């Protein structure tokens, strides 16, 4: 898959595969094109060339290039953002309920007449959202405004909101950015737990190497829009090409 901006090739023939239940990390120096890659997958950008295929658990295969972001989410891909993008003025619960939005059906008529099934759907949505918050460990904040949450909790709320859309692939864009070691450790546990209980695959972009090495089944390394290495954490750690990309020429020898 490739992505061009004007004359700049931000992502250059990147080829990446995630199997069911895997945790895959995408790493690389700043500006390597990782977030651009995310934006292409989730429909915010349309890739210039190449294909993105998904194989949802229900079976079948679907090409999702150029779909609108909300369609992509409906198909089961959910993401978080590098710079936190919560709905600041809404409560924690409401944030998660927005995630439920695409799984709910009630329309204008439902809103106005409030027939029993709309009422129960709303109640169910609130319940489900609360359960998700419990899993993430945010239930004590349930009625607080999102903007009043501590930083680490905001990051976790982004994950909760993404989970609410019932994804089979969760894309996390630097989930540990700005967290202290303790919070990072908790995040580590959380991600592993989510894979077990929620049955999701995870693709994450991360700079915290300790986290990446302990979590990932496989790692892809990008530099200048290209894939320069892939493999298990142990191999990547000692790959000279990767070390060169990160640290520069002189350290290789």
């Amino acid at each position, binding site marked *: 898959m490739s992505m061009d*901006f004007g004359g700049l090739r931000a992502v250059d023939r990147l080829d990446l595969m995630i199997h069911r239940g895997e945790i895959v990390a995408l790493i690389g120096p700043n500006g390597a094109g990782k*977030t651009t890659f995310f*934006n292409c997958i989730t429909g*915010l*950008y349309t890739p210039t060339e190449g294909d993105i295929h998904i194989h949802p658990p229900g079976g079948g295969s679907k090409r999702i290039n150029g779909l609108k972001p909300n369609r992509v989410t409906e198909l089961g891909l959910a993401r978080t*953002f590098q710079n936190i993008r919560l709905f600041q003025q809404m409560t924690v619960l409401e944030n998660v309920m927005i995630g439920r939005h695409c799984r709910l059906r009630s329309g204008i008529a439902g809103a106005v007449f409030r027939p029993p099934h709309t009422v129960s759907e709303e109640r169910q949505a609130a319940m489900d959202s609360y359960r998700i918050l419990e899993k993430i460990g945010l239930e004590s904040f349930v009625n607080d405004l999102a903007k009043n949450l501590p930083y680490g909790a905001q990051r976790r709320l982004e994950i909760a909101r993404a989970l609410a859309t019932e994804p089979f692939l969760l894309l996390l864009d630097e989930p540990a950015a700005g967290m202290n070691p303790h919070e990072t450790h908790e995040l580590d546990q959380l991600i592993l737990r989510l894979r077990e209980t929620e049955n999701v695959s995870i693709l994450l972009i991360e700079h915290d190497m300790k986290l990446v090495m302990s979590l990932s089944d496989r790692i892809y390394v990008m530099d200048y829009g290209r894939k320069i290495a892939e493999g298990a954490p142990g191999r990547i750690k000692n790959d000279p090409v990767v070390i060169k990309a990160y640290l520069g020429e002189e350290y290789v020898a």
Partner: protein
Amino acid sequence: MDLQYFAELFLGGLTRGSIYALIALGYTMVYGIIELINFAHGEIYMIGAFTGLIVATVLTFAGFPTLAVLVLASVAAVVYSSCYGFTMEKIAYKPLRGAPRLSVLISAIGMSLFLQNYVLLAQTSDFLPFPSLVPDLAFWEPYAHIISSQEIVIISVTATVMVLLNLLIKFTRMGKAMRATSQDREMAMLTGVDVNRVISVTFVIGSATAALGAVLIASHIGQINFYIGFIAGIKAFVAAVLGGIGSVPGAVVGALVLGWTESFFTGYISSDYEDVFAFIFLVVILIFKPSGILGRSETQKV
């Protein structure tokens, strides 16, 4: 095809376009710096026309020669419009730095309403005849049936202003500060650019060119009222958007394109729907090419 008629429409469009360009500058520069559509910009133009008319009339009564009246009235219009632009920014926009865009836009609409009615109440709601200030140049007489000396003056003044403005933006310290502010206001502030001053200067320049346009067009058309700012403002805005809002050369190109299209449309097709035409033009551009002819297409950063 009648070539003479075509030439007339072409030059008429050029004149129109020049005026639109002078007004469009204010929109485009302000937008470039603070991303605000300054709704009240048309009113600044209208105030320029009124100031010009008032000063010109008083001076004529006092027995000044025509040329002196023209120069002094233009200067007064430019000075006053600039001051109004400056004050307006301080009252209606500066306290709203960092507020949601919707709030600033509503404040701008309020300012526009206020200025219109201020002139309406302090002056008159009737059309006032505007004296023809630009003298007929004697040596141009033989060609005057194709393009009047008034139109020549309008076109050349516009051209001069554009060249000067481009030089200012490219080569002066202030110009550099403006470009920096328009790219990233916070970063400019951190590197020591006095952003408030840059914004004020932008408003002053935009208002000054609008006032110049106002005096020229008013003396060309021959009448003004308190409402002229609205339609002129909308059309100049269309021009700015057409060229790519935020870009100074874009404003000129957009203004000329709009001027010509309007001129040919009314000349060859129908004059009933002249104003509707500008609106339709606007809607079509915004829907199909919101970045304009010379504008950069912006990709939202995620």
